[in-house]
């Protein structure tokens, strides 16, 4: 057994109610590590042969909650949620912060594999080796804060009743969905602690389709044994000291970007990306903070950075709204992207999105899309049941977000996410609206534009990524650079927070992995073999796609059309993306990752990585 792992997984079939232990060979764990890498492996092995026919929202999909060997040890606990994505029809390794991964490992499991679907709403309660599928009808329909309150109380009562000799029980960790996940909204999240979300991928809808309201875990054991605990302790200390030094992330989280990415790098979505520049100073550091933050430092297990803060609106129309910072992404997507420029309105919308269990990025993206169609007269007040989503009207956007969460009226169409909604609205209105859909492979683009050329994503980054518009996983050359999704895949597979790894040496994470697991791993070994293999699996499943949509690289390895429009204002006014250069860079990227000129992984690449069965499955695409 490799150090750092609990040594077993839990598999639960919600159709039969049967749960059992599951193990993976050390070889599999060495190659795929955990989290995102292992998710790709499990999904390919189990569903690869029939991938195109698997409905992500059907009982055949597999929902995964996976830790990695570094979970709990590397400061900043996370858990990776995956499965066939209802957004991309591929695989997204979506991670969320909190204590869930730590509790799970302390309960003796490295992950949970959920298959089938329940007849009635249920939640899964895991206390060490005791696994129970419990009725969730009393929390079905409840928002995030209510769900957390009810389940925290109920499960602590259960623990107290069953194990009265313990004394007072701490709360268990909870992953849950809100009403949006229950309604199978494709922009629904798997959430933790009110505001933390595994957003990209849309796995809240998968939980909803399985009628799984929540997973609650309490583990009373220690974290698994590490190969060299003394070294691990030293490395943990290094991470902490580095973070304490790093004023920007610790003090502001990503919050300072609310001003800077708009004003300086000019790459922030403004009014559905019609612009990427704004100079609104109320979104800048202490101006934002002083109006709404009531808790300056808020962290998860072991985290020295505490990039999260808590915001409460204390006065005015939106009094009582509670959320985290919001972080940069939600500042942007539920702020300037909707023409909203005051912190209080931004906090109000973010709190609502949390409560409904929606993804702030994906929902902000589709709300912006709808508002632009309204601006252009393509969608009317009648189409929207009387709503008029004008830029900056936070209450109108809130009403539309509720319609999405409950799939009411046009909300039912928008609940499909921007790409699918664009197809549908185009059909209904008989006009092509895809030019207003700012997405890649069914996933709305994260709030970092490419037109100014001053932000980190490159002009091919979203077009070629195996996770589409996900700004936390982008295509980047050279492949071994810190921004490349091959490198980032290690954070998502070791499953820890890479915000705590900023400014550390590139080698550091592999030293940490080695100290925990006892397994040697080099940067080259990771990038050129292991990560590259995971990338090919993700690419293969993304291209096989189905059942409702498929991606043809010739058409869909492409930027949103908006990015070819010149920036209308700001310091980079007039700048745009050169399509010929995108094509040239794409060819270089294909070559670098071993794909043919049409973007399909080459036989040679796949065979070299031992993926002969993938090669065979891709024959039909060539």
């Amino acid at each position, binding site marked *: 057994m490799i150090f750092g792992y609990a040594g077993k997984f839990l598999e639960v079939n919600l159709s039969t109610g049967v749960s059992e232990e599951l193990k993976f060979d050390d070889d599999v764990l060495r190659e795929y590590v955990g989290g995102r890498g292992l998710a790709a492996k499990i999904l390919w092995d189990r569903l690869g042969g029939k991938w195109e026919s698997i409905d992500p929202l059907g009982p055949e999909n597999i929902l995964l909650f996976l830790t990695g060997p570094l979970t*709990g*040890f590397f*400061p900043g606990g996370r858990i990776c949620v995956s499965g066939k994505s209802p957004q991309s029809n591929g695989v997204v390794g979506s991670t969320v912060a909190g*204590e869930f991964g*730590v509790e799970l490992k*302390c309960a003796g499991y490295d992950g949970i594999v959920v298959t089938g679907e329940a007849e009635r709403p249920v939640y899964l309660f895991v206390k060490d080796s005791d696994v129970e599928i419990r009725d969730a009808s009393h929390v079905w329909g409840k928002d995030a*804060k209510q769900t*957390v*309150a009810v389940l*925290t*109380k109920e499960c*602590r009562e259960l623990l107290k009743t069953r194990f009265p*000799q*313990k*004394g*007072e029980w*701490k*709360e268990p960790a909870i992953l849950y969905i809100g009403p949006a996940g229950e309604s199978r909204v494709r922009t629904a999240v798997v959430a933790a*602690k*009110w*505001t933390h979300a595994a957003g990209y991928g849309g796995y809240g809808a998968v939980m909803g389709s399985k009628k799984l309201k929540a997973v609650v875990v309490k*583990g*009373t*054991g*220690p*974290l698994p*044994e590490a190969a060299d*605990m003394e070294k691990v*302790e030293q490395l*943990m200390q290094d991470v*902490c*000291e580095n973070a*304490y030094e790093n004023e920007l992330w610790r003090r502001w989280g990503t919050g300072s970007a609310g001003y800077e990415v708009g004003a300086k790098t000019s790459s922030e979505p403004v009014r559905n990306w019609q612009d990427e520049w704004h100079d609104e100073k109320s979104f800048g550091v202490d101006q934002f903070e002083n109006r709404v933050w*009531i*808790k300056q*430092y*808020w*962290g*998860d*297990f*072991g*985290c*020295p950075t*505490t990039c999260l803060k*808590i915001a*409460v609106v*204390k006065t005015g129309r939106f009094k*009582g709204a*509670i959320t985290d910072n919001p972080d940069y992404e939600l500042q942007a997507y539920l702020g300037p992207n909707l023409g909203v420029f005051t912190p209080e309105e931004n906090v109000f919308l973010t709190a609502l999105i949390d409560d409904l269990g929606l993804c702030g990025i994906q929902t902000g993206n589709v709300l912006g899309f709808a508002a632009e169609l309204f601006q252009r007269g393509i969608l009317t007040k009648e189409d929207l049941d009387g709503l008029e989503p004008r830029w900056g009207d936070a209450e109108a956007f809130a009403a539309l977000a509720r319609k999405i969460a409950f799939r009411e009226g046009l909300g039912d169409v928008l609940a499909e996410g921007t790409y699918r909604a664009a197809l549908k609205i185009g059909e209904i209105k008989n006009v092509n609206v895809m030019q207003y859909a700012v997405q890649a492979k069914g996933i709305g683009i994260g709030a970092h534009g490419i037109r100014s050329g001053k932000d980190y994503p490159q002009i091919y980054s979203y077009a070629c990524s195996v996770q589409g518009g996900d700004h936390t996983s982008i295509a980047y050359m050279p492949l071994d650079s810190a921004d490349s999704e091959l490198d980032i895949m290690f954070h998502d597979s070791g499953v820890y927070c890479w915000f705590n790894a900023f400014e550390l040496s590139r080698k550091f994470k592999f030293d940490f992995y080695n100290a925990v697991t006892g397994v040697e791993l080099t940067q080259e070994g990771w990038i050129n073999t292991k990560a590259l293999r995971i990338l090919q699996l993700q690419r293969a499943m993304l291209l096989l796609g189905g059942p409702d949509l498929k991606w043809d690289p010739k058409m869909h390895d492409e930027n949103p059309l908006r990015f070819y429009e010149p920036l209308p204002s700001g310091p980079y006014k007039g700048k745009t993306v050169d399509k010929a250069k995108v094509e040239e860079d794409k060819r270089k990227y294909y070559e670098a990752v071993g794909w043919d000129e049409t973007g399909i992984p080459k036989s040679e690449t796949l065979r070299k990585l031992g993926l002969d069965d993938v090669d065979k499955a891709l024959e039909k695409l060539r």
Partner: protein
Amino acid sequence: MAKRREPIWIARDLSKCSGCRRCEIACSLFHEKRMWPEASRIRVFMLVPGVEFPHFCAQCEDYPCVQACPVNALSISKETSAVLVNVEVCTGCGQCIDACPGRIPHMHPTENHILICNLCNGEPQCVKVCQEGLWNVLRIVSRKDFAYKLYARMPEEITRDLAVKIYGEKGREFL
């Protein structure tokens, strides 16, 4: 941080807690040589998100837990004034839990004995990491003749107060 060979007390400012739980990690590493949140003598409760706080021995001036122990497994350190658990003698009966106004002592997850903070014999590891992080939730001070028992409170009570302090009236809805 020097080891203090005098009666000390861990001063606490609960509302500053970030919920980072480094105190739990440091405590369990020191006492159990493992990262083991449930075996930590100091435990961070989060009954409501955002309302995290450490829950650990308040070293009451009359030590009701020590008084309640039927087998004399608990004693008071002459050096630090901490409660010491003699694990060989402790039967895990739980009477100290019931005697504590905050029900702070809790059972070791796998061993049959109670867990109570012993101030790491004068060098509390939780304080060290909390200070390192500049959170200042925990601080070492000399023990005085104060009513420390006031700090021994149930997690629910502390949560209820802090939730309202942080979130206002709405804080009541989350319990």
